[in-house]
């Protein structure tokens, strides 16, 4: 799923997808059971457009953070993600800011340069031979 296919409201884009995902998932987790997107929209009380809430819910669904079931003509949504899922979404917000991430966090591996991949595969073969 490409980032460009979803077109939430400009306001939502300004605030960042990650933040909205965390908010929507947080609201869903307080729901007594499966709820409609309209319920989530009311709960957020942020003046978010219905389509924006739907976009965020679909995005969370693609990530496996929420589950949905058809009820009549609409979906009923339920939070699938546990504490770890919520933490993952929040962590993703930190990591998505590439400048911050590269400046502060030491990643296990840094991004490969275009010509690195072949070299690395050759080295991996060398490393695997003796194993």
């Amino acid at each position: 799923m490409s980032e460009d296919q979803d077109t939430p409201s400009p306001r939502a884009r300004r605030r960042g997808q990650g933040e909205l995902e965390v908010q929507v998932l947080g609201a869903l987790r307080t729901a007594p059971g499966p709820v409609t997107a309209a319920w989530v929209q009311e709960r957020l009380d942020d003046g978010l457009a219905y389509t924006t809430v739907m976009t965020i819910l679909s995005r969370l669904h693609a990530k496996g953070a929420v589950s949905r079931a058809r009820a009549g003509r609409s979906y009923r949504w339920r939070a699938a993600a546990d504490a770890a899922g919520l933490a993952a979404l929040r962590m993703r917000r930190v990591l998505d800011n590439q400048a911050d991430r590269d400046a502060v966090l030491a990643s296990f591996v840094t991004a490969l340069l275009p010509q690195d991949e072949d070299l690395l595969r050759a080295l991996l073969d060398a490393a695997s031979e003796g194993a």
Partner: protein
Amino acid sequence: MGVAVFLPLVLPLTALPIARLAGHHLHPRAAARLLTAIAVAMAVSCAVSLVLLFVVGTANIPGNPLPDSWSDPDVRDAVPFHREAGSGAIVALTAVVAACARTLLRERRVRSRARHALAALPPGGPDPAVLPDPEPYAYALPGPDGGRIVVSTAMLAGLAEDERAALLAHERAHLTHRHHRHLLATRLAACVNPFLRPLHRAVGYNTERWADEEAAGAVGDRRLTARAVARAALISRPAPAGLAAFAAPGPVPRRVAALLGPVPHSWPPAHSPAGLATMVAAAGAAASVLSALNAAAALLILLKLTTPL
């Protein structure tokens, strides 16, 4: 104080050869510590020089709140080109303070956000926080409680059981040896003097190598650790297109190649290029510190002489 005050501004250039050679010829632990120490010594000297020039420079500003003696001709004559250097130092010191503040704020922001992200999880102690995420990543998040390792399910899924152990040992080494302090110290040093940026990059590479060597020691297998690094890099996202393609291989293949090679020596022989570069850098750092001290003492004595008691 004469030219001595200007030396710490350019002496970081003497550290460039060792920043280039350290990764290949020194044990990464020795390299990271040496380069950090040199960078900090040079940055502090450079900051002292900038402050001294700043003091002289502010005397040029009409209506400055300093005692009259600070704009005394004797004080100003002690610095060659005092007018230009003084004005330059005011600009430079402002830029340095701003850059350091920005670096520290960013560090704090990212760390507190990361901590907030993990707040929902039960406290794990030494256990890594495994986050369900389709993007493979692994990070060591330093913290007051000893820090936390964060690894995504996608990263774990891409590695074999023994390779995972190597990855976790690598991240644990980052936390145990507080590599983030080396990185922050050299990042701030690079803010003080841009000539120190290569040292920051070299410390970044050498802390990764250091953690690789620690991991290899912990799992008792250098080949296995090499495999873990290589496989993790191959399942991670490639560099964004448009990033300049250099002829030299990037850091990951160099790390893997180093792990497949012999255990590095702690220190290079004195007559080798790396040994020579180490001595040049050490001499440069010592000269920086002495020049800064000399200039500071000279200014203090001048001020004392020109200030009526």
